[in-house]
């Protein structure tokens, strides 16, 4: 079985063939290898959510073809017989309230496992484990998912997907609305699933710090096209271009450029806080020796 996700000349037009059509993807071709941790970034409306929804066939291409671990999705693919594909591809939507539908938190998280044939007891166990993984308090178990705070809803949505134990995990801005601890927990969890359980992670995000801290590959989108696909260091090497793309440098790089402006010269632009601290420390100590 081919272990990659690939897009071949994929175009997506919303409300195609109507006077209200909207082009969202424009001849996108790309390959995401299995077990990679890929971040997708780009300005609002550049097509990130549209792109990832093709991977579990919630959206079908208007033209072109998508291959997910050997399964092909083409414009005429129907919603039938996609159960197997969707078991492999877990998807956390951009808006958690679009993902929740059951009457209680626990039932919502159990839905996936039960649907794939787990017994009531097993599903409940999976759901409880997932609740713990995402840091949901036991007391919220029987509450309606719609009577939760924004961040709590987000955690329920993530737990519902994790409970299905997917091989590919798509996270569409999963930390929007999470408090800093929750943010770190969820990102660390994604890293753990990637490093130790071999999941393929696809992360849509506006947080440049997460991109450098967690991702191995980065895709930059602009107006429905892929404009760059590379390592974080390639992507952030040209600040002017980064700003043009409506993005930012990671905080450390941003801070480093301000140091440079203040007349403190660093050898290279550090992407993470540890690298930045190394550079500054070296500078101070080196200066101290002379």
């Amino acid at each position, binding site marked *: 079985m081919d272990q990659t996700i690939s897009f071949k000349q994929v175009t997506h037009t919303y409300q195609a063939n109507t006077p209200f059509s909207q082009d969202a993807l424009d001849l996108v071709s790309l390959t995401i290898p299995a077990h990679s941790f890929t971040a997708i970034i780009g300005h609002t409306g550049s097509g990130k959510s549209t792109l990832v929804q093709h991977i579990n066939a919630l959206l079908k291409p208007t033209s072109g073809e998508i291959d997910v671990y050997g399964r092909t999705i083409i414009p005429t693919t129907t919603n039938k017989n996609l*159960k197997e594909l969707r078991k492999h591809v877990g998807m956390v939507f951009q808006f958690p309230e679009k993902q929740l*539908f059951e*009457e209680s938190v626990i039932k919502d998280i159990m839905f996936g496992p039960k649907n794939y044939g787990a017994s009531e007891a097993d599903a409940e166990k999976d759901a409880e484990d997932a609740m713990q993984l995402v840091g949901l308090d036991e007391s919220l178990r029987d509450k309606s998912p*719609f009577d939760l705070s924004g961040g709590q809803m987000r955690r329920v949505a993530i737990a519902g997907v994790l409970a*299905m134990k997917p091989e590919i995990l798509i996270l569409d801005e999963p930390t929007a609305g999470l408090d800093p601890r929750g943010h770190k927990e969820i990102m660390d969890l994604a890293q753990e699933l990637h490093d130790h359980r071999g999941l393929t992670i696809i992360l849509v995000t506006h947080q440049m710090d997460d991109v450098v801290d967690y991702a191995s590959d980065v895709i930059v989108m602009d107006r429905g096209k892929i404009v760059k696909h590379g390592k974080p260091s390639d992507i952030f090497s040209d600040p002017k271009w980064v700003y043009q793309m409506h993005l930012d440098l990671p905080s450390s790089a941003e801070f480093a450029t301000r140091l440079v402006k203040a007349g403190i010269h660093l050898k290279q632009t550090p992407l993470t806080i540890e690298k930045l601290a190394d550079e500054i420390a070296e500078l101070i100590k080196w200066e101290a020796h002379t």
Partner: protein
Amino acid sequence: MSNFLFGRYLPGNSWVHRMSPQSKLMLCFFFVIVIFFANNVWTYATLSLLLIVVVLMSGVSIGYFLKGIRPLIWLIIFTVLLQILFSSGGHVYWHFGPFSVSDLSLINGGFIFVRFLLIIMISTVLTLTTTPLAIADGVQTVLKPLKKFHFPVDTLALMLSIALRFVPTLMDEMETILNAQRSRGVDFGSGSLRHRIQAAVPLLVPLFTGAINHAENLSTAMEARGFTDSEHRSKYRVYKWQTKDTISWGVFLLVGILVLFLRNN
């Protein structure tokens, strides 16, 4: 589901979009009344032709339009079949117990089908080209004279606009839940009919609770933005009576007269 057009508003700038809501609303009533005067092939053909012109002038292709009301067409066919089976008279082709099919009932069935279709299509054109708030305004203006008789015009208008909003809201909610469940492995539309119905039942509860939730949040948002009632507001869009409206009325009146002339007396 998002292709379902009945009750939905599509932004645009067509001839029909730019007409005044009041006059559209009245034209709709007028058209429905005229439909009930139609009683032969010629009259129905005239009205259908007029409707096709109206749809085209709203900027939507006929194919897209028909696809958009397909679920309703099934409903009409079902109603018409009952009608055919239960009506009597004329030359009977087939009968069984209380059911019978005759030439008269077939012809009548055909006419009823067209009649329903025309009514649904004209009202879809109305909602497609007029925002719910504008429709409510239209109703309010049209019914204003009734206020003298203590008829609750404002309440009716508000209820109507909420009801109109509700159809597409329910449809969108349906789509959202379908997607949420699909992404967690529910396979709608495969397996036996029984299996499919079984898969659809768990949708109903979340559909209604979801819709109620959204309605609640929406009314909170409206309140937070200072909404009190539909009367104490200024209007962003005003629709004055324009030449377009006069022309449209001219055409509709002519067609009305033509129908009276062509019908079997």
